[in-house]
């Protein structure tokens, strides 16, 4: 089904999902598969036909949007760094063919610290990658093992050096805290190590125990015990202090960056920009419609091979949906919400959080709702209070 091409060209961020990992981590509920799960020992045999399908969906996306202007591209997963650089190159080539890249396009690839080599990174640069996000998670071996991560913490340092040496200056690491068995000092060790790295961006996520994961099962069985929420809150505040001290400012409640280092791709999710997710299970958002693809790579590929859309389902957002999402997402951002975007009733409801110090008082006076450090920790509650 073809949409009419719009005359003004739309800005469209692209997310490319690489649904493969060499091994599944215990906490992960992402849509990803290991070679064993797909009954193959050779990942290359799987990936080439998969990338073919990705190229097809890119063509479909370009057709549907009339080939918009692409400000950001994000290779996520899964473990995109498992892909041969040539496959990443094929994807980038297709994108440049069917879309127009913005001049300073941001192209991020998520990488496992163990899989990076200088040669590989050089090839990625040639392919067009200009930002790397490394899954560091922790610097403490017993925390990594609780998460089922196998990398050697020292590899992170090496990986970062390799990335910089390859000429990629835009570098980020992901951290996870609030992990079973992780003490306050474990966490301090982790973020101190991270903040020493030659990076411009860091994401720090409190662990979410997703139902159906191995981690959830182990907690249920009592093998692992989640640390109390109060302690996890304490860890957030410790990190926020340390990050700000090193010149990393928060711009979203789990993301900190040095000047100019914010991830533009992720911001597009929060500020209502349009984005197209390529790959199985990927979500997309365009013109008030959100849809998501079929989940399994095989179903995904056969749909595209048959010339069909891989869309599994969709929703058309109502005014009220859009408004809820605006508040829910915008409040996570440092810019916050201009008070004139809130109704009188919402202002009344949220006033108490200003009194309790959960909102920044100065910004409030200046006409913006911005979460304070303690407010960020209860952002979901503030949204509920405000919208209900």
């Amino acid at each position, binding site marked *: 089904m073809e949409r009419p091409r719009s005359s003004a060209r739309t800005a469209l961020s692209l997310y490319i999902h690489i649904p493969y990992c060499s091994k599944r981590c215990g906490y992960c509920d992402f849509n990803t598969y290991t070679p064993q799960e797909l009954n193959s020992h050779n990942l290359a045999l799987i990936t080439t036909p998969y990338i073919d399908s990705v190229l097809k969906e890119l063509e479909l996306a370009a057709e549907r949007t009339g080939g918009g202007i692409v400000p950001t591209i994000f290779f996520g997963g899964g473990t995109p760094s498992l892909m041969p650089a040539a496959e990443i190159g094929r994807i980038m080539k297709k994108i440049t063919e069917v879309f127009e890249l913005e001049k300073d396009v941001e192209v991020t690839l998520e990488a496992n610290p163990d899989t990076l080599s200088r040669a590989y990174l050089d090839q990625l640069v040639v392919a067009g990658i200009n930002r790397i996000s490394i899954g560091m998670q922790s610097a403490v071996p017993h925390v990594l093992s609780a998460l089922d991560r196998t990398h050697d913490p020292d590899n992170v340092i090496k990986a970062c050096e390799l990335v910089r040496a390859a000429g990629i200056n835009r570098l980020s690491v992901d951290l996870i805290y609030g992990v079973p068995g992780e003490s306050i000092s474990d966490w301090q060790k982790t973020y101190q190590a991270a903040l020493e790295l030659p990076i411009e961006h860091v994401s720090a996520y409190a662990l979410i125990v997703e139902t159906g994961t191995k981690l959830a099962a182990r907690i249920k069985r009592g093998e692992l015990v989640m640390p109390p929420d109060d302690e996890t809150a304490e860890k957030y505040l410790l990190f926020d202090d340390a990050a700000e001290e090193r010149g990393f400012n928060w711009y979203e409640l789990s993301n900190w960056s040095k000047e100019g280092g914010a991830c533009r791709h992720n911001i597009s999710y929060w500020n209502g920009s349009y984005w197209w997710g390529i790959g199985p299970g990927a979500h997309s958002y365009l013109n008030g419609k959100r849809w998501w693809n079929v989940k399994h790579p095989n179903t995904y590929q056969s749909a595209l091979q048959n010339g069909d859309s891989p869309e599994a389902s969709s929703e058309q957002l109502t005014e009220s949906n859009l408004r809820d999402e605006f508040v829910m997402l915008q409040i996570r951002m440092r810019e916050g919400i201009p008070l004139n975007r809130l109704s009188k009733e919402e202002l009344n409801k949220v006033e108490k959080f200003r009194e309790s110090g959960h909102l920044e008082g100065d910004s409030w006076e200046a006409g913006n709702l911005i979460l304070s450090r303690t407010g960020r920790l209860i952002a979901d*509650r503030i949204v509920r209070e405000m919208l209900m």
Partner: protein
Amino acid sequence: MPAISLNKAPQPSKTDPAQIRNFCIIAHIDHGKSTLADRMLGITGVVEARNMREQYLDRMDIERERGITIKSQAVRLPWRSGIDGKEYILNMIDTPGHVDFTYEVSRSLAACEGAILLVDCAQGIEAQTLANLYLAMENDLTIIPVLNKIDLPAAQPDKFAEELSKLVGCKPEDCLRVSGKTGAGVEELLDQIVAQIPAPKGSADAPARALIFDSVYDTYRGVVTYVRVFDGKLSPREQIQMVSTGVRHELLDIGVISPEPVSSAGIGVGEVGYLITGVKDVRLSRVGDTVTSYHNPAKEALSGYKDPKPMVFSGLYPIDGDDYPILRDALDKLQLNDAALAYEPETSVALGFGFRCGFLGLLHMEIVRERLEREFNLSLISTAPNVVYRVFLEDGSEKIVTNPSEYPNGKVAKVLEPIVKATILSPSDYIGTIMELCQSRRGTLGGMDYLSEDRVEIRYTLPLAEIVFDFFDQLKSRTKGYASLDYEPIGEAEGDLVKVDILLQGDTVDAFSSIVHREKAYPYGVMMTTKLRELIPRQQFEVPIQAAIGAKIIARENIRAIRKDVLAKCYGGDITRKRKLLEKQKEGKKRMKMVGRVEVPQEAFIAALSTNTDGESGKTKK
């Protein structure tokens, strides 16, 4: 066969009073009254075997399920005596068997000349049966002691014949032995009813006087009023008048029950039947009132009429605030059938809009609540039941308190609370534990008698408030279920009472205020604050929970402020899921109640009001 077919039997309004016997059955729940009644319907032929269903006379589902009779009913049974071979009409008036309905029982008894005292001869007499027996004896009824369930292996007819004979003042061998289940002895019982119970007396020429002993609302026919005629006659299309209310009605239908309603040409002296006037509200046709002729009214009403007076109060609130109008309509409808149910609108800061309801007692309360939930599909929260207090202030004024949150703060000169006389029957092994329980509930021992070698009757005076708490449960658990309890209000007494308020962040939660004896205030405060600390989720600020008497804090707990309530990740694929969760939470928010600034989930109220963590200090709804 001594049964007579209905059309050949003496007809209503044309039956000589000498041929009539009016009787009721006094029995405890489970002692087999309904089974015996069923058997009588079968033997006299008014219900054919193929139409028989168990507990034929119990109309409401709840009654049948609980095996108890809430409302009485009267059945006309034709019977040819096996002794003199003559035809008789036996009117069996079914009586309610529970402590809450003493007044209704007394009116049913007033409609009879005799009573069958029915006792399960595996269990012996129970406290309520004893109370009703005394009531029957005060009404000068002829008592026929009957031991039921003689077919049971555990039956001890000799032992309990001894017990009954002492109570009734007859010889042990005068106690009849029957089995409602097998029918053994039932024909003989019917013959003895004819032989022993006196025929009704009354003047056929005097202005009509009929006693209302029951009044039931029927969706199709309006109020069905059950009466026993003492003087004169009531006829169809006649104008009648209710003496106490002065209301005038036309008799649209009149008849007898055998056991389905059958219209008749009227009912005369000594007869029992039903009246239909088209009124829609049982309060216009009150139990105990006298029906007379409008054009030829009796000068004097039959004695004994009383307004039903609620003794136990509780706030009923819909869980979904939108259901308030449904609850109001439901109470209106239930009241059509239940003159004893009182209610008025009430607003609770914590629970929203609801009603303060007055009940005859705890069972009455439970039945009403269950009917509201079952028949009207309502989900309700009820506050802990309380009694009515008369509070005298220092300035000499008086205040009636039916809701603890309305109890005046300070300046109280004295408080009167209702007092009951409680009778407990129990195996003598439990005397110690029963006395301990009653003592801990501010009881005063009134006396103790042995009914037989190992069964004892213990009499206590107790504040009703103590019984309303969890007395039944405690008594039953301490005596392994063997003890039975009956109580009747005997007046008021001054109590050393205080109101304990529960405060959340300084704001009183009206639904948790309770009037307790001074010595119980501290345990109550500790129990409620501890319970609430566990039940109320953490807020964005610290929430102190306090128990207080006036301005004095007697117990305190703290809910620490929540520090973390956010999901760390929210990227493309998370947005839809997160928004849907938010929408779901919006729905859940409706079930949140605000106490001051504190948000309390309704589940917390329900749990705090209904569970009991500590039997002794705790208050429960049962």
